[in-house]
């Protein structure tokens, strides 16, 4: 069973302005603030994007980077909203997309587990892969979907993890579902009960 090197694992790239877009929606979490602010500068410099075309939603990571909030609030965008938690941001993001128009580009920056949730909502609005850019930064912790009981285990940083639902030990594969916004977790010792590798931090 292939564990790493699976092609469904998303490939991210540093955010770059897509000057083909008319409206730009920037969404970030935690240390992703830095990427978004850099992108605002790039959009301004490109000359193809007015302040009115840029909107930003940002959720702070209260455990880190406390200063980003103030900087984000001053970003050169028409509309900025800052949230203290991700669910609140996602709700606002959905409302924003309901009134957004064709020509919109979405830029997402933050941990993959956060970006997966954002992109899942974007997908409901038929925002396709050529309208979304994403840059992974911050925690590499994964959201893991247990293939046996279907529970999601959040913030997984280790090669194997105990499932939050069925308590089986799962090996975390590189196989990623955009629909579930999660990696696949498969029972690690199904063939030889108790035969488990040592727990190691790998997604940090």
């Amino acid at each position, binding site marked *: 069973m292939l564990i790493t090197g699976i092609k469904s694992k998303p490939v991210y790239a540093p955010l770059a302005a897509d000057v083909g877009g008319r409206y730009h929606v920037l969404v970030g979490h935690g240390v992703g603030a830095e990427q978004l602010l850099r992108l605002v500068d790039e959009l301004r410099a490109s000359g193809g994007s007015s302040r009115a075309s840029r909107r930003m939603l940002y959720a702070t990571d209260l455990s880190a980077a406390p200063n980003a909030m103030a900087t984000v609030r001053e970003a050169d965008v028409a509309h900025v909203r800052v949230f203290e938690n991700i669910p609140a941001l996602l709700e606002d993001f959905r409302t924003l997309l309901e009134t957004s128009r064709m020509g919109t580009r979405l830029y997402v920056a933050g941990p993959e587990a956060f970006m997966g949730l954002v992109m899942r909502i974007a997908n409901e609005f*038929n925002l396709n892969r050529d309208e979304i850019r994403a840059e992974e930064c911050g925690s590499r912790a994964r959201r893991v979907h247990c293939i046996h009981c279907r529970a999601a285990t959040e913030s997984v940083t280790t090669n194997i993890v105990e499932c939050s639902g069925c308590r089986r030990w799962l090996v975390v594969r590189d196989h990623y579902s955009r629909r579930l916004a999660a990696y696949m977790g498969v029972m690690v010792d199904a063939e030889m009960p108790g035969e488990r590798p040592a727990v190691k931090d790998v997604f940090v």
Partner: protein
Amino acid sequence: MSHANTILVRVSAIEPLTPLIKRFALSPAAGGFLPAFSGGSHIIVVMRGATRVHRNPYSLLSPPNLLDSYQIGVRRMEVSRGGSMFMHDHVRIGSELEITHPVNLFNLDKLARKHILIAGGIGITPFMAQMEDLRAGSVPYELHYSVRGPEHSAFRDRLLERHGARIRIYHDSANDFIDVEGLLGNQPLGTHVYVCGPAGMIEKVVGTARIAGWSGSHIHWEQFSAPPVGDAFDVFLAKSGVSVRVPPDQSLLEAIEAAGVDAPYLCRGGVCGECRTKVLEVDGVLVHNDHFLSSEEKESGRAIMPCVSRAQCTKLVLDL
């Protein structure tokens, strides 16, 4: 790769729709029903004339749920290599023709949240079938249909009867043109635009959508290039060991087929990429008329689409 399984059909109705367009109904010669299809599909009609065989693509315009016959609309082309003239002048009720199974290269996006259809002239045909699919669904759609003048608006009554206020017809003669900028400048997320019509209209719609910030996955167009006429040239088919002369009014693909060599094809209109062939040697220039190869590929001179493209050269060697 050519179609062993063509279907023999008999022309069961011919109706002039406009001064230039005739509608043909094609019924299965063996009786029964024709294969089901999706809106936007086309067939290749094989016309066996006295001196040569024409194979032209035509969009199916009949409702996809009516399969006792297919309907196609054929516009008489002023500059033609003979296919449309053959249909207009030689095909009668009762004539037998061969057709391929339908192929869809102009499919509606099933995840679209809104569809905008833009047709020019004979470009209305694929939308006739697509709108029957849309009518049965719940996703909003609208058709903007541009014609030279009232006498050219084929299907007007049928469209208004079936789709009512979702239809807007524009007449060039009344200086009434589609406001493409206004139309594409303010649409909800998840809208898809589809355009079929003259090259200038397609360029205008695609270009305007791009300027309005639309990404490629939301822009759909179909234009079958008729293979243009050109100077005669010679081609050598390396695998078959055959030399072929391509006359001015025949396409490279047609000449290859006439020489008895089996070459791959699907759309015969420069769209799908199926007939893409490796160029082993050429001492002149390739005249690319397709919409498939990238500009780098065209410049490289290493590949050609024989269904619509030609060459100006004294020597051309293909990997066929």
